């Protein structure tokens, strides 16, 4: 399996010299299972670069297929969708999974972003590719690209965000962005979802101090991410969704802090890596 990071920033894209190393695009990760196919995790502005990189292959010929898993519909997780070029190539096929009470409601949420007052293309139906939209049933495993996916909702401020566990032939990746557990730490069902993962990509928006200051916003601090990784007994923790005001130097410090916290809290054997836009990770 190979992961690639296209957007690692939370809330809003942050162009500028202070964020060039880690990257300023909002959330988007791609996963290529070893058996082929493509899974896209969230569609922040990073999805634009992913989309352009795909046009050299089957997606440029109108014979591409991919599944898009959306954790939730806050802007920083869907705002790259209208700019994901393979969606405009007739013949390509996409399955979209996300969090809503019904598939029709999820379609309505995505249509809301495309509406004429906001975007010139005006509707998903003008995009060209075949798009099938399904609301995820929590806890019910489903198959995409030869992988088994299980989802569960993490608390996220007043809303919730899906975390996804993706397994292929004994390899496991978990994507848990936008998780605000509160003082009790991750609930048992979340820990169960993370358990034994080869890679846990986890919300690490804040330093522990900022995390306490903005507790109601529904994000994790690096301390919360470390807590989730240790509780789940994962092999590797990847930090992501950095706050929009953090410079590259701030994220350097955030990661160093994460390493120290892992060592202090029983996670010495857990590898730690920051998500960096434009990099890949092979499992």
């Amino acid at each position, binding site marked *: 399996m190979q992961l690639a990071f296209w957007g690692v920033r939370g809330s809003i894209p942050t*162009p*500028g010299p202070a964020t*060039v190393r880690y*990257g300023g*695009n909002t959330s988007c990760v791609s996963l290529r299972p070893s058996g082929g196919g493509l899974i896209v995790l969230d569609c922040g502005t990073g999805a634009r670069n992913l989309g352009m990189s795909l046009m050299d292959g089957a997606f440029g010929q109108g014979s591409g297929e991919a599944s898009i898993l959306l954790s939730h519909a806050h802007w920083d997780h*869907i705002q790259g969708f209208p700019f994901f070029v393979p969606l405009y190539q007739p013949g390509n096929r996409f399955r979209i999974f996300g969090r809503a009470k019904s598939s029709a409601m999820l379609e309505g949420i995505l249509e809301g972003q495309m509406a004429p007052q*906001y975007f*010139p293309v*005006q509707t998903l139906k003008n995009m060209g590719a075949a798009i099938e939209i399904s609301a995820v049933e929590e806890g019910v495993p489903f198959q995409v690209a030869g992988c088994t996916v299980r989802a569960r909702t993490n608390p996220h401020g007043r*809303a919730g965000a899906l975390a996804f566990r993706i397994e292929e032939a004994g390899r496991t990746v978990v994507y848990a962005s936008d998780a605000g557990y509160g003082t009790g730490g991750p609930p048992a069902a979340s820990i169960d979802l993370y358990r034994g993962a080869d890679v846990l990509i986890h919300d690490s928006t804040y330093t522990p101090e900022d995390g306490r200051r903005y507790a109601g916003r529904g994000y994790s601090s690096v301390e919360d991410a470390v807590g989730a990784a240790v509780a789940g007994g994962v092999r590797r923790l990847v930090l992501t969704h950095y706050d929009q005001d953090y410079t590259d130097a701030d994220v350097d410090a955030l990661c160093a802090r994460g390493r120290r916290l892992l060592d202090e809290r029983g996670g010495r054997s857990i590898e730690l890596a920051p998500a960096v836009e434009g990099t890949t990770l092979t499992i």
Partner: protein
Amino acid sequence: MRVRFWGVRGSLPVPGPKTERYGGNTSCVEVRSAAGTRVVVDAGTGIRKLGKEICSDGDGGPSDVHLLISHTHWDHIQGLPYFSPLYARDNKLSVYARKRDDLHLQAVFASQTDDPYFPVPFSEVQAELAFRELSDAAKFEIADVKVACARLNHPYIATAYRLTADGASVVYVSDTAPFTDILFEDEFVEHPPLPGAELPDRDRQKLQKMREGVVRLCEDADLVIYDTMFTADDYRRMPHYGHSRPSDAVDVCRDAGARRLVLFHHAPERTDAEVDAILGQTRAQAACIAGGLEVSAAFEGLEVELGRG
């Protein structure tokens, strides 16, 4: 007056090393008169930093911002939920945009921050908000700043603004297609017209009048900020997306007798080096204009002083 550029990009923000010099934030321009009146045109992601600056201003007093919206496509409004003066009591924000028959301006902004898209609903904004809907050729005053409008040629329709204060004028013309091949109204033009296709007479006349309105708005302007997102090749491939080429902007400025043109709304894929090259070519075109036309390319942080103070 002082004109400052906070976001110069079109379509969507593009962070990264290739856009570092011109900047990757979407459209936002601030105009401040010598008397201190603050008018902002468009609320792309560039408005986030402006908001931080306003909140950390020395005097600490409440802010009063007048926000003119060219149109409500994402790249012109997506920064507003991150404009920090919204979340402090006593601040004022007045939002102006073209009146539509089908949708009230306030509804457009309210649904931007609705569940499930944004965690803080519009009802929790603490600043005092006012919405004012404008006719196509509206003229009005914001304290010492005179504002005039003209309709643009863009899908779902956009508005150009001329701001006059301190004896100087700046005109913001974004987004617009040239006034020649397609008349844009509310509908998405699904397929571009075939090359050389004849326009219906009615459309041609309407476009001609629209261009005259824009030229009049730019007449003798000290500064014209113009949507030049497309190269000639982009325009050939995508005339139905509603953006202009630098040559279109130069022609309008020439006809209007404007003094300075700022290329604006750079395409997301345009690297810094490519913007440099486009600027060079456009300066060469402008050099042929009698009376002269100064040309620059907008970058984040560009400041232009006009008129007195």
